[in-house]
């Protein structure tokens, strides 16, 4: 292992831990809130089960606005809200607030698009069998779209890692912030390159895990 990595290994592990916290909360928010929002967006579309143009347009606009924000500006824009929620706008815990908000918007859009791939006939068959909306979502939609949902989550997770590198501006820490502070700002290019390699390995592993799982559960 390169000496410089050995020298900074404690800080690197702490930074990796901070990234895991931020990305972990983002994944949780994406699953618990983003997926239902994406499902609702899908179901409220024209011709779908809960067709409602007003709800769809409003939700669609909110998701688009959040995703349109350059993430750095979103973090700054949300500082008062973060302070209101967390009592502070600084630190890893506070950084999870903008991270979860972008995660919800990001994954809801990808989930909606994944659900659009479910053949309309499957929904029609479910309705004809007397399925309730809840049954249709859990027994038909999610089952049929599961591999697409996993791949979407993989894409989102990689984006969350990328977003987390920005959180240094509010003291969020993380591996990306470590690379900037210890590598770039202290003119240790080699350290920065090593950190980038670590991040590339992380992303490769996540991508590999996502694709493998999606392939395993896809029986189409």
């Amino acid at each position, binding site marked *: 292992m390169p000496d410089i990595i050995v020298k900074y290994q404690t800080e690197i592990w702490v930074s990796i831990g901070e990234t895991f916290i931020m990305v972990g909360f983002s994944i949780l928010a994406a699953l618990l809130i983003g997926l239902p929002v994406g499902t609702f967006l899908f179901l409220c579309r024209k011709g779908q089960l809960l067709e409602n143009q007003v709800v769809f347009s409003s939700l669609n606009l909110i998701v688009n606005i959040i995703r349109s924000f350059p993430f750095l500006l979103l973090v700054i824009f949300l500082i008062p809200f973060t302070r209101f929620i967390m009592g502070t706008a600084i630190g890893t815990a506070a950084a999870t607030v903008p991270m979860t908000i972008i995660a919800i918007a990001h994954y809801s859009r990808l989930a909606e698009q994944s659900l659009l791939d479910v053949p309309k006939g499957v929904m029609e*068959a479910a309705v004809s*069998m007397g*399925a309730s909306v809840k049954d249709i979502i859990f027994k038909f939609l999610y089952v049929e779209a599961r591999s697409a949902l996993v791949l979407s989550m993989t894409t989102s997770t990689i984006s969350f890692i990328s977003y987390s590198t920005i959180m240094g501006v509010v003291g969020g820490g993380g591996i990306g912030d470590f690379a900037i502070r210890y590598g770039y700002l202290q003119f240790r290019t080699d350290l920065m390159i090593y950190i980038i390699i670590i991040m590339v390995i992380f992303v490769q592993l996540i991508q590999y895990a996502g694709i493998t799982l999606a392939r395993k559960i896809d029986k*189409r």
Partner: protein
Amino acid sequence: MITLDNVSKRFGSFEAIQSVSLHIESGEIHGIIGASGAGKSTLVRLMNLIEEPDKGDVIIDGETLNHLKGKRIRQIRQSLAMIFQGHHLVSNKTVFDNVVVALQLAKVPKKHRTEKVMESLRFVGLDTLKDQYPGQLSGGQKQRVAIARAIVNNPKVLLCDEPTSSLDPNTTAEVLKVLQRINQEFGVTIVIVSHEMEVIKSVCERVTVMADGRVYEEIEIEPTGVHKMEHSAEGIIKRLKSGGDLHA
């Protein structure tokens, strides 16, 4: 059993069904035939309220369905099973799971589910394929799984929307034989929508001919069969319009 009373359905400016009245007796195999766009699929979708009528009443066993909402209409749909041209199976569920879902929706106790599913799969001759996925089955097998799913909950009515139009002649004959057995052994009323006269002729007792969203004619098919019939709905309708006799 099934009564449509002056039912109309419009999609935008297109009037798919125009003041249709129809009665189907219990235990009957009833055919609905017509050219593309005649409104036959819409008509059958009105029977279980997948499509809601703009006007008129859909009455099943004396109960007017189009005034029902929520749980009650879902319960009614469980007794009005439906199969489609595309099998509409869930690709990520095994054959067994595709069938058992109908019982889960009907809240059948868990202990009875396996037995009922296997009984249903045996009826369509697919019990040995219970652990396969739809992607591993042929078109005819997929349609038989859809039939097993439809009958597992002992429905009163089986609505079939073009059940054989994507199948080859041999597989079509197999599927029709299964439908006939369902009718004969369980007394299930069957409504078959098709544009293929051969299909209708081989299993139905009465036929409703649809044209331009209206019932053009109702025909009794004699047990001896109908002779020299055209092999397309277009032909039938053309002949009827020109005053021709179906039995000629």
